[in-house]
């Protein structure tokens, strides 16, 4: 696990967000260290997605400060967040079914070779790099297969490989295990371990308690737009987290 004195990848202080009269987030502080897997839990409407969207650059916070790797950042668009090294793996994975795995990994950042004034795609280099990334993730995914023909676990691998391509330092995963089989869940959790091994910080947004307890180092519980708990995973229990989510226990 990362040492306590390392610079946090992400540091939020006093983050708040209002939509008109609705207070979606209030005074949220949090830190994510390199190589740390943080579980973000909470019921629907607890403010998880608002928080994720602020970090990913979809929304600007109404209050508070966001620091990335020690320096203050302000994101106007998702592209800005991606530029500093924050990647999001969306729930629906945002893959194009009709393209190959390699094409999806490199979508929007294709490798090209110049032939005079014309730049053509470098298929070979992209396939080789994609294969390397799938190898790092220990996923048996062929770069030339169409995403359409892939299993849920392989699709996750493609979506995660995309984040590795840019050398992201923080990967946020939105419900990666929501709609896949038990066997594939195991594969996805394995992928999260691979990211951690490479020093990437992961934020796992999930409803599934067993998954969070299987991979996370720390769990953060949100309720009614506020952070109610932030505990190392071995100091808490699924029962306590459930109580925090539902409000049976106010804070821990």
């Amino acid at each position, binding site marked *: *696990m990362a040492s306590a004195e390392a610079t946090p990848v992400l540091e939020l202080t006093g983050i708040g967000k209002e939509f008109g009269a609705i207070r979606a987030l209030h005074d949220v502080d949090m830190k994510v260290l390199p190589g740390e897997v943080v579980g973000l839990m909470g019921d629907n409407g607890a403010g998880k997605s608002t928080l994720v969207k602020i970090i990913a650059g979809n929304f600007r916070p109404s209050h508070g400060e966001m620091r990335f790797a020690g320096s203050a950042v302000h994101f106007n668009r*998702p*592209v800005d967040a*991606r530029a500093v090294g924050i990647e999001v793996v*969306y729930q*629906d*994975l*945002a*893959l*194009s*079914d*009709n*393209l190959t795995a390699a*094409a999806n990994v490199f*979508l*929007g*950042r*294709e490798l*090209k070779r110049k032939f005079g004034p*014309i*730049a*053509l*795609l470098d*298929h070979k280099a992209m396939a080789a790099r994609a294969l390397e990334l799938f190898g790092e*993730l*220990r*996923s*048996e*995914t*062929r770069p030339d*297969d169409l995403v359409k*023909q*892939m*299993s849920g*676990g*392989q699709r996750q691998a493609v979506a995660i490989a*995309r984040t590795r391509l840019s050398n992201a330092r923080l990967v946020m995963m939105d419900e990666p295990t929501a709609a896949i089989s038990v066997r594939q869940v*195991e*594969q996805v*959790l*394995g992928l999260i*371990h691979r990211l951690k091994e490479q020093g990437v910080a992961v934020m796992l947004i999930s409803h599934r308690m067993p998954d969070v307890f*299987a*991979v996370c*180092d720390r769990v953060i519980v949100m309720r009614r737009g506020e952070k109610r708990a932030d505990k190392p*995973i*071995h100091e808490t229990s699924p029962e306590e987290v459930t109580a925090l989510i539902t409000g049976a226990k106010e804070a821990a």
Partner: protein
Amino acid sequence: MAMPMESPISFTNVGKIRWWQRGIFASQTGYVLLALAVLLVIMHFASPYFFTQGNIQNVAKNFSFIAIATLGVTFVIIIGGIDLSVGSMMCFSAMITSMVMTELSTPGGLGASLFVHMAADGKTVLANVPGLILLVSILAGLGVALIAGLVNGFCIAVLGLSPFVTTLGMLSIVRGLGYVVSNGRGSFPGGPDADYFYALTSGDVLGVPAPFIYLVILALTMAVVLHHTSFGRHVFALGGNEKAAELTGIPVVRVKIEVYVICALAAGLQGIIISGWLGSAPANMATSYELNVIAAAVIGGANLAGGIGGPLGAIVGCVLLEVIRNGLVLAQVSSYWQQTLVGVIIILAVLVDRIRSRMT
């Protein structure tokens, strides 16, 4: 906290897809091509005239007359859009081209003094620079197509209007403008450059019709663009999953506008070529051609849901339609049957594709 999760991940239940289940062999384009080959063999036995040089030239010329526009529409279909304005666009571009050519070639006409002068006999009009009038008038024809394509693309990509409604409106607008500028009479290419114009549009090189040569060049270019440039990659991604394309940072609006502009330019070029063959650009030229063009693209395997299509499919679709038309004529079947048969083939092609995708 390392968890006991270190067993290597394997997908032993996922086999490698066999070569005949991939690429062209598994596509609608593949078996429509096969159907076409069968049809050609049948035609050979059914009519001794089919494989004569004259008839093949005729077929090649005829399908080239819609195939270039089909290439353009295929681009639009791949991104999951539709362009109904191609027929009107063909007419309008052709009309503007021949009107500009005539205007520039008439001494006393607008700007004509820059381009032509009277010969010493006082009757013959001579070009100042041979070919310049032709160039300017074709650029004018393509220019109006470019503007219409930009408007289509702007409405669809920026304003978020439905492609069907936008291009249906453009169909009417452009056709209407054609009637307005020509007063409903149409126009004729004329002046000293008209001979070059006819040579370029309806002439042939070593027996190969000129439109066919343009088609081959454009189709090859399109294949390279679609499969070997990032623009083409983005076109496919957009058709496969527009939201994903947006999230991965593809400039969706720009790609969409570019695609509608390409389609309009292809239609404009097609119209100019057709007018060379007809010798005029009547105001009702290419009416309802958009249906033939879209039908050809769909028969050739372009998927109206987006994400699938290519130049080979577009050409195969056009050839199939033309061979059937030609075959019906040779077999002395009433040409009125053609349209019915085309409809049946569209449904059959899509049906076979559906059955195949259910089976795999």
